[in-house]
Structures are given as C-alpha cells and as structure tokens.
C-alpha cells in the first residue's frame, strides 16, 4: 500500500496536535479557558473589537471558550494549525512552488504550536496569520485578471487586515509582493507600489487610530500576547519563517528523489519537536492541574497525582495538604493526620503561600477554611492582576459564590447575571439565581461554609496565619478542617506542646498525630500511666526505634533517612 505523504502528513500532524493538547497539555487548555469570559453581548463585542486587531481577538476569545471541553478546544487548535499549513501550501502552489519541498510548509505551524504551549500567547495571532495567507491566496486567484483590480485590493487590504487582525498586515504585505513578483508576464510595478504606499499610509495613521499603545504594540496591533510587552522577536521569527519557507519552496530547484523528501520530512518533524520541547512547560502544567483540581474539589485526583519532583513547588504542598485535610479514610479519620509527612513538607509555607507568591490556591484554601471574605479578596486581587484585564470565569464564579455564602445576594446576582451571557456557565448561573436563602443553607458546600464564617470582624493578616486559624477555631470549634490546619501548623513548626493540647482524646487519632504524641512523651520521659492520650503500642515502638537508631548513628540524617524518611520523627528531628 502506497502512502501519499501529502495526505498522510497533515492528518498525522492534526492528530498529534489534538492528542498533545487534549491529553498531555490538557490543564493549560482548561486554565486558558477559565482566565477569560466570552460574553454574548453587544457591549462585550464593541469593547473587544474596538481596537486594532480587535476582530481577531474577538474570534480568538470566541474559540477559546470551547476550551471548556479540552477535546473540543484541542480539535479547534489542530484545525487552525493545519489550516495555516494548508494555506501556506496553497500559496506555494499558486506561485509555482516545488512539490518536493512540501514538508517545509509545516514549519510555521510547528512554530505556532510551540508558541501555544505558553498560556500567554492567544489564538489571535494564529487567526490573523491564517487570514492573511488566505486573503492573499484569494488575491492570487485573480492573477490573470486585470492589474487595476489587484492594485485596488493590494491598496485596501493592508490597513483592513491591520484593523481587523493586527500585525499580520505585515505578512500580508510581504506575501502580496511575493505574489506580484511571481506573476511573470502580468507583473505590474504599480500594483506593488500601491501596496508599499498602503503600508506607509497605515504606519502614518496607526498612532492616530490607537494613540494609547506602545510602539511595539502598535506594530503587533492585536492581542497576540496577554502581557503588554509582546515578545516582538518571536513574531518576527515566525513571520520570517513563513516568508522564508515560501521563498525556499519557490526558488530552490526541484528534485525528484524520494529519499530526499523523506529526509526533509524527518528533519521538519525533528525541528518541530525541538520547538515544542523548548516551550513545553511541565511545571506550569502541574500547577494548572492543581488549580483545576482544587477548584473542582477533586481531592482524590490530587492525592493520586504522581509527583515526579524531588522538591515540589509550594503550590503543590498547599494543594496536597488541602486535599489530604479534605479527605477522610474509611474510619472517618482525616488523611492529613495519617500521611502528611509522607509528602515533602517545608514549614508553615506548606500550608499556605504568601499572597504575593500565589493568590489562586491560597484563595481556595481560605474559602474551604471558612475565611469567605478573605477568599473573595484574594480572588479579586488575582482577577485584577490578570495580564489582559479579562474577568475570567474562574474568578467571577467564585465571586458569585462568596457573595452567596456571605449573604450579599445583590452582589452575587450581579455576577450571576454576567455569567448568564456565557455559553458554558449559563446554566450554572441560572441554578444559583434560582437558589433561595434556605437552598443555600441546605447546600452541602455553601451551607457548611456559611455556618463556618467568622462570627466577628477581625483584621486578616496572612503573616500571622496560625493566629488567624486560632481566632476562627475559637469561634467554630466544630470546624474540623481548621482544627487539622492548626494541628499541622503546630507540627510543621515543631511545637509539640500546643499540638498535644489541641488533640481530642475522644476521637480516633490519625497515625502521624499519634507519632507526634509518642515523640512528645519520649522527649519529656512521661511514664505510660501519665500519658493523657493513649498511643498505639506499635507507634510507640516505631518512635522508640527511631530514637534508638538516632543514638546508634550519632544523628546521621542520611542513614536515618533510609528508614525514617516520611515519618514525623524525621521531620521533627531535622527541621531545625
């Protein structure tokens, strides 16, 4: 069976993109979707389109909303990247490019695939680029037509593309010139000159159209990148690659040897893999995994997630500790007390990061602990520092929830009404709009959190997180999560006395809590009859074994780690 490389390559390419974004880079897709909110309103349309490149931005945002389902979002991305390759290929064909160099037309798509690994690059640039090549392809169809028509198109198309899609107007200009020079007998210098004049006029008028933006943003035009300091060099390289590929395909002589075609295909794939490997960010994918799972309260998923890092990021330890504290075993014992020290712990910052380091996971922790107003503040802060000033659904949904819980119905309704204009959060918002105060009270999450809110006002100081926990615990001694956080805070701080004073002897005590108690008894040489809370004999033996080994090995941490890494005894002894 003969394989037609021209048909097979795009198919495999599309499938590879889809698999990559739907499975390997899934949480990036979900994160990007949550960081924006596409609204089906006239105001949103006007606000988005009302700047150079705004139309491309609008289409980009429209498509990104489908990232809600990663499989659909990945399919859209795959289609767009394949379309880019196809348009470049069609352009090359139109200017009589060589068939044998066909694999080169994949390079710009590979380049953009790599860029899309960075969550800050939007789809707007890709859409703009596809449209630019597509429009010039339409223009090329008229190459045998009269020069006056081509002249008119070349004069008008550049400012129009700039206004609609932004900086890809530059590539349109370059492609028009290539197209015009490739029309051998009908080449008209006036048509090319009109394109040049059009560029000059666009450059002169651009600052008046959009006076508030920087020069680099003026050059790019659209929102191709979420931050204001768009990495210009990336786009220059990308656009140069498009032009370079076209020129190579046009001017390098044709060769008919099959092996050269195969080598070229392999070389292009290798180059593409290198691009993607360079931009692939496993750490941020992991962070996005935790953000997604913490928000969706998939505690099992977090606990099951394999950790490959020897020293996980604080966001990981924050997430895993929250997941452990929210989960219970068959006996109803909290997993944080059972196994927290089996994971890498690093002092108090393992429980919650400083707000300047992270607003998002911290807001989730505060929300679950019952610090509803503070969680709301954190979410709001996270929303306002979003680089492209978009009010993401991630934030708006949580702002609606915190206001519902806190009883600020009108504010909650304001957010819910906004969400009613979205495609995928419409029903979510409708359901909550229908909720009465009684419904909220009886809701297992909202009702519980409403009860666990602080009863009095106090100034929340993240620097004194333990004190904040103590305040809320005094007001709600029945808040098990706060209690576990407080117990863990004492353990992480090696404060065994305060830890022991908080242990409830009436309940089943988790394994590592018992270990800490046994350690306290041994350190203070408390005889067994005076031990106010009983510890299982096997655990006391474990602790005694540790103490014995510590003495034998003169406190050599490396030796002890072989046997006791993952125990509280090890943490207590070597966390100075």
């Amino acid at each position, binding site marked *: 069976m003969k394989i037609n490389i021209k048909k097979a390559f795009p198919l495999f390419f599309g499938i590879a993109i889809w698999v990559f974004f739907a499975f390997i880079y899934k949480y990036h897709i979900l994160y990007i979707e949550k960081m924006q909110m596409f609204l089906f309103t006239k105001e949103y349309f006007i606000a988005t389109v009302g700047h150079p490149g705004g139309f491309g931005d609008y289409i980009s945002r429209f498509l990104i909303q489908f990232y809600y389902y990663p499989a659909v979002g990945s399919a859209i991305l795959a289609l767009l990247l394949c379309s880019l390759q196809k348009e470049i290929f069609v352009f090359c064909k139109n200017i009589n490019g060589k068939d044998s160099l066909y694999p080169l037309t994949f390079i710009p798509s590979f380049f953009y695939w790599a860029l899309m690994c960075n969550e800050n690059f939007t789809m707007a640039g890709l859409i703009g680029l596809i449209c630019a090549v597509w429009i010039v392809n339409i223009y090329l169809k008229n190459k045998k037509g009269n020069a006056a028509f081509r002249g008119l198109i070349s004069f008008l198309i550049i400012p129009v593309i700039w206004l609609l899609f932004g900086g890809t107007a530059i590539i349109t200009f370059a492609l028009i010139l290539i197209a015009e020079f490739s029309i051998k007998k009908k080449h008209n210098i006036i048509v090319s000159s009109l394109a040049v004049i059009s560029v000059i006029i666009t450059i002169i008028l651009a600052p008046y159209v959009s006076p508030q933006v920087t020069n680099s943003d003026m050059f790019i035009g659209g929102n191709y990148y979420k931050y204001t300091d768009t990495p210009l060099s990336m786009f220059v390289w990308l656009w140069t690659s498009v032009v370079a590929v076209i020129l190579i395909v046009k001017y390098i002589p044709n060769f008919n040897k099959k092996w050269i075609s195969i080598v070229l295909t392999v070389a292009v794939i290798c180059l593409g893999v290198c691009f993607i490997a360079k931009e692939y960010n496993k750490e941020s994918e992991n962070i996005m995994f935790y953000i997604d799972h913490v928000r969706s309260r998939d505690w099992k998923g977090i606990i099951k997630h394999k950790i490959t890092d*020897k*020293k996980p990021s604080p966001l990981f330890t924050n997430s895993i500790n929250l997941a452990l504290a929210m989960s219970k075993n068959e006996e109803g014992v909290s997993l944080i007390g059972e196994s927290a020290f089996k994971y*890498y712990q690093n002092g108090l910052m393992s429980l919650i990061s400083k707000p300047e380091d992270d607003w998002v996971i911290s807001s989730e922790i505060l929300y679950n602990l019952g610090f509803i107003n503070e969680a709301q503040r954190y979410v709001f802060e996270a929303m306002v520092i979003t680089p492209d000033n978009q009010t993401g659904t991630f934030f708006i949904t949580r702002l609606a929830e915190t206001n519902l819980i806190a009883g600020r119905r009108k504010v909650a309704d304001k957010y819910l009404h906004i969400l009613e204009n979205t495609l995928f959060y419409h029903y979510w918002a409708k359901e909550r709009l229908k909720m009465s105060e009684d419904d909220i009270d009886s809701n297992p999450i909202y009702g519980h959190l409403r009860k666990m809110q602080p009863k009095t006002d106090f100034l929340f100081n993240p620097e004194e997180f333990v004190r904040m926990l103590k305040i809320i615990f005094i007001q709600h001694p029945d808040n098990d999560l706060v209690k576990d956080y407080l117990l863990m805070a004492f353990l992480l701080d090696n404060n065994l006395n305060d830890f022991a004073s908080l242990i409830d002897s009436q309940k089943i005590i988790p394994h590592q809590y018992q270990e800490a108690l046994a350690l306290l008894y041994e350190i203070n040489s408390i005889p067994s009859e005076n031990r106010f809370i009983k510890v299982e004999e096997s655990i006391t033996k474990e602790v005694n074994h540790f103490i014995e080994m510590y003495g034998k090995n003169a406190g050599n*941490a*490396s030796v002890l*780690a072989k046997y006791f*890494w993952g125990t509280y005894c*090890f943490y207590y002894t*070597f966390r*100075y």
Partner: protein
Amino acid sequence: MSNLKIILTIAVILTCNSIISAQNPQKEEKINIPEMAAKEADNLMGLFKLEEYQVFLVDSVLQANLPVMIEEMTKIKQSGASNQESFQYISDKWLDKTDEAFFKIFTKEQWNKYLKSSYGKEKKKRDKRLKKLLNSNENQY
C-alpha cells in the same frame, strides 16, 4: 544561586534597608529566608542530583543558618562597623558551618562534585582567608 550570591543579596538588602529606612522608616524590605533557602536548595538539587530527603535537609540547614548569619550581620551593622572584613568573617564562619552540614548530607560523589564546583572554589578562598587571619594573629602575639 551560589552561596556567594546569597551573601551578596543579604549584604545589598542590609545596605539598602539602612538607606531606605533612613528615608522612609515604614518601607523596610524584609529578607524572605524560606524563599532564599528554597531557591538555593532547588539549585543544589539540580547541580548535584540530590535525593528528596537531601533537599529537605539542605533546605533545613539553610533555613537554620541564614537567620543567625543575618542577625550577626545586622548586629555588626548596628554597632556602626563598616569594614568589609567583619562582614566577610561572619559570612565565612556561617558558610563553613553550612558546608560542614552539607558534608554530612551529601554522598561522597556529590561532595566531590560540590568541591569541584564554584562552591568548592569559594570554600578554597575562605580557607585561604582563614589561614591568613590565623597567621596574622600568630604574628601579633
């Protein structure tokens, strides 16, 4: 971030703090020790392929040693001393202690690699300075 960079960062922050606090007493920048220790532990983990428990121990040593070193440096700064030698002496002393702790944590291969790296070069420089200091003290008596 090498040890030298840690010292330089601390020294710059201490110097800047004195300037900033003189101009605006409320805006004194805090040294984030856990963050500094974590970054340095990350760096050592990458360079010497440390195991999970070794990273924990390294981080722990740094979190214990850095605050004491900063405290001593602050005391010297507050006493009005401005000569570089005093700061150098304290940093050398604490870096030596840190190295002693690392020696116990690292395996033989890791320690040899450590000595061959920029950390080892710094250690040699410190040893030279210590020798010089001891010689000058002997000459005085």
